[in-house]
């Protein structure tokens, strides 16, 4: 045998709509390359986690993929990135595996096709949901109520009785929580981490800290290499606005529920009351944040992204944005005849958002959080 006859493993361009297996085997090839290089080990959690392994199962790869924040640093720092013949593109391939993973673990499993054209599916559901509320309200009330001016406690409930609202949103929310929990169980089992880790306070605290600070969305300290090899920190800023905006909105709803049941106070609340303050700040967050994220997405270097799944990302961001915008509009217009219409729109988007949580990009946050918890546990096992 002449050694020069050895062939280099296939590194030609991948077909655009490659299936999950192809993504996994490419991720496996890349992790083997990176594991023999390791130059990127200081950039984020993915590389140290990779170094703890020599072989990579599908579960391992999915775990690593969900650890990746797609900051892009390892692409602009890689001497073997395309056009080099080794064609090493870690951010993109991990994005593909990560996006596959939402369908891989979805519950119930027969809803996996939701991820096939996720952008379209989510848009349809949102549209149907908004339409249902608008048409429902219109059919239910005569125009005098729908387009009347209502003020003072209980004004919203003239449009939709509180118990009906709670029943519909409670059911949707509980379903989504159930579906998300079941997906997480599937994910956790497949990546092969014992369930005891989820009871380990240090691992939970470590994961929560890294998720809450977006520790790894910084290219190892300088910022994302999102558009070129010149880093910036915009995505982290906009993501923080979105995430904390979302949490504030969630807190606003929770406080409102307490006010209603514990205190017996009826919405709408005055502008200075806690639920409104939280909701307003949150609404501003999930308005500005998503706009920034969308702009960043369209400016991003396409080489870093799983472009086939852009629809999913955009649908999720736009859904958050519309929830925020309609919420703010409701606040400003609640004492006018448009209140009924705005309430229908807002509730339509909130409902659409709730029921698509387990079936869209929302899952990235959940799996990312879990992956970071596992990484915190692994790091402690390996380095004490």
């Amino acid at each position, binding site marked *: *045998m*002449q*050694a*020069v006859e*050895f*062939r*280099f*493993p296939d590194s030609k361009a991948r077909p655009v709509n490659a299936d999950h297996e192809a993504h996994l085997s490419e991720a496996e090839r890349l992790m*083997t*390359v990176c*594991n*023999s*290089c*390791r*130059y*990127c*080990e*200081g*950039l984020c959690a993915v590389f*140290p986690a990779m*170094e703890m392994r*020599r072989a990579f199962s599908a579960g391992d790869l999915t775990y690593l993929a969900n650890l990746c924040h797609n900051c892009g*640093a*390892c692409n*602009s*720092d*890689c*001497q*073997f*990135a395309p*056009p*080099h*013949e*080794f064609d090493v593109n870690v951010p993109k391939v991990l994005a593909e595996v990560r996006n596959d993973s939402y369908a891989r673990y979805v519950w119930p499993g027969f809803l996996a096709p939701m991820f096939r054209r996720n952008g379209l599916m989510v848009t349809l559901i949102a549209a149907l949901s908004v339409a249902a509320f608008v048409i429902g309200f219109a059919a239910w009330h005569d125009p005098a109520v729908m387009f009347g001016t209502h003020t003072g406690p209980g004004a919203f409930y003239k449009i939709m009785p509180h118990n009906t609202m709670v029943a519909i949103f409670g059911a949707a929310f509980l379903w989504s929580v159930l579906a998300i929990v079941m997906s997480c169980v599937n994910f956790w089992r497949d990546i092969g981490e014992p369930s005891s880790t989820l009871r380990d306070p240090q691992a939970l605290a470590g994961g929560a800290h890294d998720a809450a600070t977006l520790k790894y969305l910084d290219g*190892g*300290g*300088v910022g994302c290499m999102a558009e070129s*090899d*010149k880093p910036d920190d915009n995505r982290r800023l906009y993501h923080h606005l979105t995430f904390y905006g979302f949490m504030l909105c969630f807190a606003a709803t929770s406080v409102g529920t307490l006010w209603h049941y514990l205190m017996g106070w009826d919405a709408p609340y005055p502008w200075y009351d806690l639920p409104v303050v939280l909701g307003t700040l949150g609404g501003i967050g999930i308005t500005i944040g998503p706009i920034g994220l969308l702009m960043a997405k369209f400016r991003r270097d396409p080489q870093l992204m799983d472009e086939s799944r852009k629809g999913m990302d955009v649908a999720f961001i736009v859904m958050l944005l519309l929830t925020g915008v309609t919420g703010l509009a409701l606040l400003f217009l609640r004492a006018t005849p448009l209140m009924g219409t705005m309430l229908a729109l807002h509730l339509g988007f909130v409902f659409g958002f709730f029921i698509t949580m387990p079936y869209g990009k929302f899952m990235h946050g959940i799996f990312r959080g879990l992956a970071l918890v596992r990484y915190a546990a692994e790091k402690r096992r390996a380095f004490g």
Partner: protein
Amino acid sequence: MEHPVDFNKTYDVVIAGGGNAALCAAIAARRAGASVAIVEKAPRFYRGGNTRHTRNMRCAHDSATETLSGPYTEEEFFDDLLRVTQGNTDENLARMMIHQSKDMLNWIVEQGVRFQPSLGGTLSLGRTNSFFLGGGRAMLSALYRTAEGLGVHMTYEAEVTDLEMDGPRFVAAEVTTPNGKRRLVAKGLVAASGGFEANIDWLKEGWGEIAENFLIRGTPYNRGSLLRTLIGKGMTQIGDPTQCHAVAIDARAPKYDGGIITRLDCVVFGIVVNKHCQRFYDEGEDIWPKRYAIWGRLVAAQPDQIAYIIFDARALKLFMPSLFPPITGTSIEDLAGKLGLDPARLRETVDGFNAAVQPGQFDDTILDGCHTEGLEPAKTNWARRIEQGPFYAYPVRPGITFTYLGVKVDAEARVQLADGGRAENIWAAGEIMAGNVLGRGYAAGIGMTIGSVFGRIAGEGAGKHASR
């Protein structure tokens, strides 16, 4: 903002090359107030030749830092250099470089480069070498960003192919671009265009036809065109064409630019045979980092410049993984068949080796003294019988990292003329003058030290010269 080179302008300093040496020179010259043009032969993605592939640099320092585990004095650095070069170094230049390397650690950070503690798998260098966060390409991008921010002009896919001289004075460079040849006038030239390792014909002048079988680990663009021109224009040559850094890398690697990931760290855990199934050197002579860089030459001396590292299942997880998986056989004969070797002869060599192994306590972390008796050549450490299947092999070839033949410089990085004196306005830095310090041998991380220190000196010198 990237500014392209304006060929109608007279620059204070033109810099040939786009790697570490070139960028350090460009930044230093610009900071000295000069207008600077970088002319880089490679396309933008491949800019910075071999620097793209690096991961660390060796600098002296008097105490531990956040990223260095202990002090490394100038004296110790110099001793290491004397040892690896066996005295083949210009002592004054070497001492000057080592002294300057101390300040380099700060300077390079000021230019935006970031360090991290040493990499997993290279802990033996954690005290002496500073590792770039994100590797050489990250380091390079930081230098480029800084240079751009300072207003250095740069053009890619542009090769300096000739020099216009007026006696010992550089006048203009002939630059070959995709749009034809251009003339670039400047008050000074810094030659930072690397060695000639990617020029197989030049390698053949030293090595003969066997150079055809060498693999080039780094950039295909370092072909020594400017080095040739400089020597042709009367600059002093230093070193001979066989001196270079060469290691044994996976024979399946591409001809050029395979980089670090085709490296193999398993020689010490097995035996190495040539195509006639004969061993030819003590695989366990010393710890691997100290012997890494001799195996390129050893394999180059074997028939067809090919050899095979053979080991068994027990060794598989003792070393860093590499790009290609090892070739696997259920038996020695099976393995030989897959490698195209004579099964009976490989069996004979392995049996002979196994019979010569003496009892001992194998320990991969120290020189364990496990050795052979009555075998020629002996294996003096980590000799353990190759008996537990499956059996593995890596085919290896010489992989050339970079060449040492270059132009002679003085302590100001000014290029020396063959008939005495020095060029008025030509400086050199990096691989193109590495032979001044490295007559032979190598110490990990010194390539970048040579580029940074001499690059900075050259840039400052050229910048000041222009403003006189």
